[in-house]
Structures are given as structure tokens and as C-alpha cells.
């Protein structure tokens, strides 16, 4: 039997978002995640306060939005998830698509665990179960860390039921939503959760603004330090923030754009998505720092003296302490952790959808088969690796390498291969301009071919040097090699193995519209 004859599985008709609004809300739901709430405020505070807005805006306009548009063009023009779309550009480029799918898979496996923590804390909010010592509660009573100080033992199979149960709930919900499809599952959840998230977080921010000490927090966040403008690290931090916050460069926006009908506007919705994400980020920063100002006021210290102003420490140690001090604390605790659950869940759906779409397309799986198979495998790995007494250290390490090495390498490879090696960016610009209402000029090509990859490469080199020279969080060197660099090796191996596997459906018969020059 010939290779072509053996590819008999009939795929379902390609799914589509029901319209512009559904696509925009889903893309915003993907972009607005945990990082908007717990990363941006801390990064801005540590990199010039109010002055950070300047490099942040420059980075948004010269890297975030241009790479977002590149993702849209690839997915929309070549009508597929990352592996299929890249393969249709050039056969060997499929491996870059699988590299992005592998990144999404790894991120999904640990990202679900953070949502499970938030779900637990949502429940704990109602009786402020964390008590007075929120640090001990999170690391001890809740996560039951094997060794809080030195992380030894480094791996156990002692499962923590308080994490395992909400984690199972998160995965069951994810499978159910993705099995329902793009329009009836993914889009509908975003249509409900996005307004709810705005309402819940908006209520929290408005309340925080009227707490005593709120002005001190905002003063700390927005007082400009113009001297930092000359510091290249601040610019790298700004590019890094806009890049990570927009979910670009690792397949999500390629996959989402492929679910838009052919005659669909790309650049105008892209601007709405990018500005929604950034507007929410600044809004979240105001709420978080108003709250931190209140906490500092209650503790009789300066905002600068507070520990844990970003990341999981902010969410699961500092914020519970803040909520305990607030009038109507249980209500605002529930609003905060409910917001984390919703923001995280919408992002998780988009991440898993990348993996699901890729397997549907290559192996001819139905969306239900893909949702269940991928969901179950991911859930089992989540439980084994991250719901144990050593889960926090593993999560922290894998997250550091998957994000700062994996995603950045993926984005650089995409820009360099499309722009420098294959020289297809003019075709992408043509596509964006042929279907969109806001045209992109040659500045866009410069941003994705030159500026974006150069800045991303600087970010990558600086991070690799730091990880190699200083290690990470004082963890053992061998552990970082296995769990950190091992994750990167795993991503590369997975990309090559999945590329080598046989397509169950014919991927290359494809009519590219609109036609560019003599090429279809």
C-alpha cells in the first residue's frame, strides 16, 4: 500500500470561531493570564516604576504586536495548527511547529497545577483558612513541601490530596470544554469568563483604591526613575514582559488564527487583543499595588520593605495576608482567587488547544479523541510531577526553562527562519494587508526580521549566562541539569520524533488564498 493510499482517515471539517467577537474574547482570554496579575506589577516596580511605561510601550509596538501579527498571518494563511501551518510553508519547518506544541504540552502540565492552587485558595478564602502565618500555611500545611529550605529530597511520590483533588477538577473541566469544540466550548467559556473576570477584578481594584495606604502603594509603583532608561536590562525586561504577556511565539495565536474564516480581518482584532491585554495589566498593577500599600500601612512598614511582590509568592503568601487585614476579607479573597482561576483557565484552554489541534491534524483524531487522550496524559503527568511534596520546586524549575529558554528560542527560530532563511515575511505582510482593514508597512517587516530577533537573542543570551553562572534559586546543579536543561532537550527530541511520524491525512494539498505573486 502506498503512503498516500494509507492516509485514509477522514478529518472533521475545520472548526471556526463564530465571529469577530468570539475570536477577540478568546484571544484576550488566552493573553490575559496569571502573568498579567502577578508578573507585570512586580516587573514595572523593579524597573523604573512609572518610567517603565516608556520601554514597555516601545516594546509592545515594536515586538509584541508585530510578532502577534506574524503568528496570525502564519495560522490564517496556512490554515493549520503550528506543525501543519509551518509544514505548508516548508516541509522541514514542521519540526518548529512540533517544538512549539511540545512547549505548550510542558507548560500545560504545570500551569494546571497553579490553577489548582488558586482553586483551593478560592475555597479557603471563605473562612480565611491560611490564618496569620500565610507563608507557613502555603509551603507547609497546604503544599506539605518535603524540605522548604533546601529541597532535599528532590523527588517524592508523596501526593498532596489538597492539590490533587482540585487538579483533577481542572483537567476534567479542560477536557470537557475542549471536547465541545472551538465555537461551542472554547469560545463560549471565554464569552462568559472574560466579562466575569473584568467584573470580579474590577470590584477588587476599586475597593483596593479606597483602603488606607493605597496611595503609598501607587506612589511606589508609578514614581518614575528616569535614570533606568539608560540601563539595557530595563529594556530587556520590557521586551520580555510584552513578549510573554501576549502569548506569542509558541503556537497559540497560530492555532487560534487558523480557526478564523478565510475572509477575516486580522490586524484590527490584533490591536484590540494587544491593547486589552496591556490595559488589563496596568489595571491589575494599580489593584495589586494599592493592596500592597494597604498591607504595608497595616504592618507599619514601607512598601519597599515588603517581601513577595510578584509571582506565586505574591498570590499565595502576600495576598492572603492582605486579604486577612481587609474589611470583608473573605469576599475580596474569593474575588482575587476566583479571578486567578478564570484568567488561568482561559489561558490553559488555549495552551492545550495547540496540542489538541496538532494531533487532530496529523493523526486524524477527532476533537473528542484528542481532548480526552491529551487531557488524560497531561493530567497523569501533572499529578505525578507536581502534586507531590516536591511539586513546587519541580514546577519552578521547569517553568523557568520552558519559558525563558523554550519560548524565546521558538520565537527567534520563527523570525529568523521565515525572515532570513526562507524570506517569506513579505508574503505574510501581503496576506495581512489583503485581508485586514489596517495595513502594515515595511516597519513591520523590520520589526519581525531584525529588531524582534535581535532583542529576543539578547534576552536569551543574558538568561543563559545567568542560569549557567549563577544557577537558579540555589537548587542543586544536577537537579537543574535534569529538570531544567533536560526539559529543553525533551522539547527538541519530541519535535524531531513527532515530525518523523507519518501523517494519517494528506497535509500538503492546500490552496493558499490570496495568491502571492506566482506562489500559492
Amino acid at each position, binding site marked *: 500500500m502506498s503512503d498516500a493510499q494509507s492516509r485514509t482517515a477522514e478529518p472533521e471539517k475545520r472548526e471556526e470561531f463564530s465571529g469577530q467577537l468570539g475570536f477577540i474574547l478568546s484571544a484576550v482570554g488566552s493573553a490575559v493570564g496569571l502573568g498579567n496579575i502577578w508578573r507585570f506589577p512586580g516587573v514595572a516596580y523593579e524597573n523604573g516604576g512609572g518610567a517603565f511605561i516608556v520601554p514597555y510601550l516601545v516594546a509592545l509596538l515594536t515586538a509584541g504586536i508585530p510578532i502577534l501579527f506574524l503568528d496570525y498571518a502564519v495560522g490564517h494563511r496556512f490554515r493549520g495548527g503550528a506543525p501543519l501551518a509551518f509544514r505548508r510553508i516548508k516541509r522541514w519547518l514542521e519540526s518548529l511547529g512540533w517544538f512549539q506544541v511540545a512547549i505548550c504540552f510542558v507548560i500545560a502540565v504545570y500551569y494546571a497545577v497553579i490553577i489548582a492552587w488558586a482553586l483551593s485558595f478560592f475555597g479557603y478564602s471563605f473562612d480565611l483558612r491560611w490564618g496569620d502565618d500565610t507563608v507557613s500555611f502555603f509551603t507547609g500545611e497546604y503544599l506539605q513541601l518535603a524540605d522548604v529550605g533546601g529541597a532535599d529530597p528532590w523527588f517524592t511520590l508523596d501526593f498532596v490530596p489538597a492539590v490533587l483533588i482540585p487538579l483533577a477538577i481542572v483537567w476534567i473541566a479542560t477536557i470537557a470544554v475542549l471536547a465541545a469544540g472551538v465555537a461551542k466550548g472554547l469560545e463560549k467559556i471565554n464569552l462568559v469568563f472574560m466579562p466575569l473576570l473584568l467584573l470580579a477584578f474590577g470590584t477588587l481594584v476599586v475597593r483596593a483604591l479606597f483602603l488606607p495606604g493605597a496611595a503609598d502603594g501607587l506612589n511606589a509603583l508609578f514614581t518614575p526613575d528616569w535614570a533606568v532608561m539608560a540601563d539595557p536590562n530595563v529594556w530587556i525586561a520590557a521586551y520580555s514582559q510584552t513578549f510573554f504577556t501576549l502569548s506569542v511565539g509558541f503556537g497559540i495565536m497560530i492555532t487560534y488564527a487558523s480557526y478564523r474564516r478565510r475572509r477575516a480581518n486580522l490586524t*484590527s482584532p490584533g490591536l484590540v487583543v494587544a491593547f486589552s491585554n496591556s490595559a488589563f495589566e496596568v489595571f491589575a498593577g494599580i489593584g495589586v499595588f494599592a493592596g500592597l500599600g494597604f498591607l504595608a500601612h497595616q504592618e507599619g512598614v514601607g512598601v519597599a520593605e515588603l517581601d513577595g511582590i510578584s509571582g506565586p509568592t505574591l498570590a499565595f503568601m502576600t495576598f492572603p495576608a492582605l486579604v486577612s487585614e481587609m474589611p470583608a476579607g473573605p469576599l475580596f479573597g474569593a474575588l482575587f482567587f476566583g479571578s486567578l482561576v478564570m484568567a488561568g483557565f482561559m489561558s490553559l484552554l488555549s495552551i492545550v488547544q495547540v496540542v489538541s489541534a496538532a494531533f487532530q491534524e496529523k493523526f486524524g483524531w477527532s476533537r473528542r479523541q484528542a481532548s480526552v487522550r491529551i487531557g488524560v496524559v497531561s493530567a497523569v503527568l501533572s499529578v505525578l510531577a507536581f502534586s507531590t511534596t516536591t511539586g513546587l520546586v519541580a514546577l519552578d524549575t521547569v517553568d523557568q526553562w520552558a519559558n525563558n529558554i523554550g519560548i524565546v528560542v521558538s520565537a527567534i527560530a520563527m523570525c529568523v527562519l521565515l525572515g532570513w532563511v526562507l524570506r517569506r515575511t513579505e508574503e505574510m505582510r501581503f496576506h495581512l494587508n489583503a485581508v485586514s482593514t489596517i495595513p502594515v508597512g515595511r516597519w513591520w517587516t523590520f520589526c519581525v526580521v531584525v529588531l524582534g530577533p535581535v532583542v529576543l537573542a539578547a534576552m536569551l543570551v543574558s538568561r543563559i549566562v545567568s542560569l549557567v553562572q549563577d544557577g537558579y534559586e540555589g537548587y542543586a546543579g544536577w537537579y537543574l541539569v535534569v529538570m531544567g536543561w533536560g526539559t529543553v532537550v525533551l522539547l527538541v527530541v519530541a519535535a524531531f520524533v513527532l515530525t518523523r511520524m507519518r501523517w494519517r491525512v494528506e497535509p500538503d*494539498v492546500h*490552496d493558499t*488564498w490570496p495568491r502571492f505573486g506566482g506562489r500559492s
Partner: protein
Amino acid sequence: MSSAAIALMVISLVVLWGGLAASIVVIVRRPDRTDWPDGWEQHEDGAGDRPDEPVEHDT
């Protein structure tokens, strides 16, 4: 709050929320193109999107 902090907060909000408002206005006024490149009719209803589905051209 210091006047500098207030100014930067206002500028940040105006630029980013203003950018959002402006992009929403643009998309509401002109949600889609009306002048599509040739050949779009062949791709209505997702035709040509399925990996195993060749598109037949009449030219």
C-alpha cells in the same frame, strides 16, 4: 501620591486604555474589508481547508 507618580499613572492609563478604545472604534466602524482579493468564493464554507481536500479550479 507625588505629582510625578500621578502624572505617570494617568499617562499609562490614557495611552493603554485610550489605545484599546481607539482600536475598538476602528473595528466597529470597519469590521471587515469589502474588497476581497480574487478567488475567495472558492473558499466559502471552509472549502480547501481540510488537509485531504484538493480544491478544484475552473481556470
